[in-house]
């Protein structure tokens, strides 16, 4: 059988969530013994596709073949039995168990109901020597590094007999040295006959390890290319697409005084690493500063620190000249902040509460919405109706729970609430994620309107189109720092893509002007 050249074939995979098509007729064919990259922007549908392959989601239509045999993968156990293993981005490890205990969890070798740990340890040692996965089987997972934890995850899949390993954004949480080590582990795995699918949007990593690369964009299959004969720019072009930019009309910005000044800010993430590392930036009245960057480079932590939701470890944040470091969120709000949060369901709304109560969320304690601690529902509902009208929130009425609205209308309600107070600084984090074109246009217009009214706007987005379209200045964030500030009129998606992947401004310019190739930039990087 000629097809058996491919260990995995996903043919015509379509996955719909309601009206939303996450995967639209996607093909993915992985050869035996290759490292196959799956490339796409955030939300392009990569994870959905892999979840289909791993049995976590059921495809709406399409066919999966493993070693030429048509299979029906209904759950992760079936996937395991077919030799498919997944190394998750967020490790699925039990903190308090040892490495051995974690690896054998769920498939413990036992004798009369007793775990045979000796045998397990022996086998783990064998596997780890074979693939040069250095780990100490007896230590507790809580006490080892992130890189080591990832190796435990890899061992876990190998222990279960995986021949095809899926890596979901494996380098997102690793240090540069750990990334190097992971790359060599991946190479030794394929040398031993394993096949690997790696989900990523980091172009340099694809260039280094992958043999072939399948690009998907907005849920659609674009192309499968040979990595050796494709440049990083070529890959970037495929990922982003050459569509005409959908630009919002706007006049030139008239930046005035500084509204937000961040200096040498350090914010730690849960593991204690510096998610924001000595970052400085300024936003002026009358301008939109866009923050571009790949997810996980500290953008969320930066915004949480400014809005008082995360602790500032060092540095200063000033809003209108007033220090707001570690102030309670309400004090910061009262100092002139509006915040459209990145996760609208977790932070933006209280879903079971009525739409009116949600629209009152920032001002319920003030007159006329309440008086001496008593809520005035007549005023609250009236206030909500006005905001609903003004922002064209499509809803049956203001009394339905917020959960009854569509995503776009929920977002409009949040924006209505935040813009109403006419804040000096409006922070919009991923304001159009998951929204349709009409809603996106509306929200962009409102952001620019705020700017034209002489307010400062800080826009954080993973969508380059959005950043280029709305911002007056673009700050590129990489590994917790602003690595470059560029003018949207003098840059393009390719340059931004290179900067976001860690290239310096000079290197990016060199590539732009044809003085250097993208490959050279990455070799210079090392």
């Amino acid at each position, binding site marked *: 059988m000629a097809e058996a050249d491919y260990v995995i074939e996903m043919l015509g995979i379509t996955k719909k969530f309601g009206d939303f098509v996450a995967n639209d007729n996607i093909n993915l064919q992985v050869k035996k013994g290759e490292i196959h990259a799956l490339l796409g922007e955030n939300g392009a549908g990569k994870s959905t596709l892999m979840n289909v392959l791993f049995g976590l989601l059921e495809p709406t239509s399409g066919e999966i073949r493993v070693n030429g045999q048509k299979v029906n993968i209904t759950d992760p156990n079936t996937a395991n039995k077919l030799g498919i293993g997944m190394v998750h981005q967020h490790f699925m490890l039990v903190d308090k168990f040892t490495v051995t205990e974690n690896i054998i969890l769920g498939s413990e070798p036992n004798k009369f109901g007793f775990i045979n740990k000796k045998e397990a340890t022996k086998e783990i040692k064998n596997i780890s020597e074979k693939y040069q996965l250095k780990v100490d089987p007896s230590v507790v997972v809580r006490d080892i590094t992130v890189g080591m934890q990832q190796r435990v995850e890899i061992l876990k899949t190998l222990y279960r007999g995986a021949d095809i390993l899926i890596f979901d954004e494996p380098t997102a949480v690793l240090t540069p040295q750990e990334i190097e080590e992971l790359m060599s582990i991946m190479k030794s795995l394929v040398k031993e006959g394993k096949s690997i699918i790696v989900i990523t949007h980091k172009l340099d990593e694809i260039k280094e390890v992958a043999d072939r690369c399948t690009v998907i964009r907005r849920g659609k299959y674009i192309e499968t290319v040979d990595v050796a004969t494709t440049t990083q720019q070529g890959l970037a072009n495929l990922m982003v697409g050459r569509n005409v930019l959908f630009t919002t009309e706007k006049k030139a910005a008239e930046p005035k005084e500084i509204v937000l000044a961040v200096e040498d800010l350090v914010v730690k993430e849960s593991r204690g690493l510096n998610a924001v590392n000595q970052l400085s930036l300024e936003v002026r009245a009358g301008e939109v500063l866009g923050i571009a960057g790949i997810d996980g480079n500290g953008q969320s932590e930066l915004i949480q620190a400014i809005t008082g939701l995360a602790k500032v470890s060092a540095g200063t944040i000033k809003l209108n000249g007033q220090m707001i470091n570690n102030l309670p969120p309400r004090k910061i709000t009262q100092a002139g902040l509006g915040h459209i949060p990145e996760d609208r369901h977790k932070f933006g709304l209280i879903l079971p509460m009525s739409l009116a109560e949600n629209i009152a969320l920032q001002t319920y304690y003030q007159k006329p919405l309440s008086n001496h601690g008593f809520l005035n529902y007549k005023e609250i509902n009236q206030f909500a109706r006005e905001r609903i009208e003004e922002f064209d929130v499509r809803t049956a009425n203001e*009394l339905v729970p917020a959960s009854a609205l569509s995503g776009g209308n929920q977002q409009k309600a949040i924006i209505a609430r935040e813009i109403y107070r006419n804040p000096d600084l409006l922070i919009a984090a991923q304001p159009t994620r998951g929204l349709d074109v009409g809603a996106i246009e509306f929200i962009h217009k409102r952001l620019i309107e705020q700017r034209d009214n002489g307010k400062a706007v800080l826009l954080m987005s993973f969508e380059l189109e959005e950043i280029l379209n709305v911002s007056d200045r673009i700050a590129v964030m990489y590994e917790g720092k602003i690595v470059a500030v560029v003018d949207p009129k003098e840059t393009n998606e390719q340059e931004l893509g290179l900067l976001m992947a860690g290239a310096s401004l000079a290197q990016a310019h060199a590539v732009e002007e044809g003085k250097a190739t993208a490959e050279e930039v990455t070799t210079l990087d090392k």
Partner: protein
Amino acid sequence: MTNSMNGKLKGVIVALLSVILGLVMGAVIMLVSGHDPIAGYSAMIQGSFGDLSYFGETLRQSTPLILTALAFAVASTAGFFNIGIEGQSLLGWLGAVWCALAFPDLPKFILLPACLIVGALFGAFWAGIAGMLKAFFNTSEVIITIMLNYIALYLSNFVIRDIITDGKDATPIIPDAASLRSPGLEQLTDYSRLHYGIIIAVLMCVIVWILMQKTTTGYELRAVGMNPFASQYAGMSTKRNIILAMVISGALAGLGGTMEGLGTFKNIFTQNSLPGLGFNGMAVSLLGGGNPFGIIAAGVLFGALKTGGLLMPTEAGVPEELVDIVIALIIFFVGASYLITYLLDKLPAKKNALKEGGE
């Protein structure tokens, strides 16, 4: 939209079905053990609503349960699982009686309110401990409140034996100036032990309803319970709200215990085990859907089961233990209301699935 209306209606249906299922299961048990369930339940109805005196007893029985149920509802609205109502109500009982015995000469208009307030404060303090630990150290309120229940039980026994009395198992009777007993209400109900507590309980239901639905404080408590992240984003203090919810809950629980101390028994006595005010209150709260007015209805039902049950051994020959089993079964089905909700959801879902399949 259909959401809130349907939700409320469904809650009522689920509650009614729970009670009916519990009664049916109770009947099965009576049948199996050779008793006549019709005679049994007639005795129960007779003993709870049969005449004014029984009805008065039913209301008296339900008084502390309404308050402890309210206590549980307030805490759970704010996302807090208060299992400690047992201990909080017992200490409230103790505090109120202690206060009454300490100042026997005060006039009624000072002593009675003072005893009510002390009872509420004892409960609030006990719950506040768990609230503080949760707010500042994120300890599990479940474990802390369970343990505090036992401390409260033995603390109360110790205070009765070694501080208030000299080695006795019960305190003296409280002075009339601290009593909630109402000759008027007693006369009205053909000399039951019905006391002013029922008015306090209903009043508290109204106050709690206003607090939760009409004030900014209640809005914050509900918000924190439904989504602590969004509440923090909106500038509410989660710590403050957790402690506040616990203090209010504890005060209501303490007041529940106070009803026994100043109304029903007029003293406090040592206990071998927790008196059950809190656990029954939790069941009442669940059955009432956490809604103050639902709680009144559920509280009266529980009161009826308890007082009506007293007549079952004599009138229908059903042993006391079986009566307790029947009551426990109803509580069981209330707790298992998830099952009933699930079945209710399953029915229309199946119909829809068939429809879609046909199209």
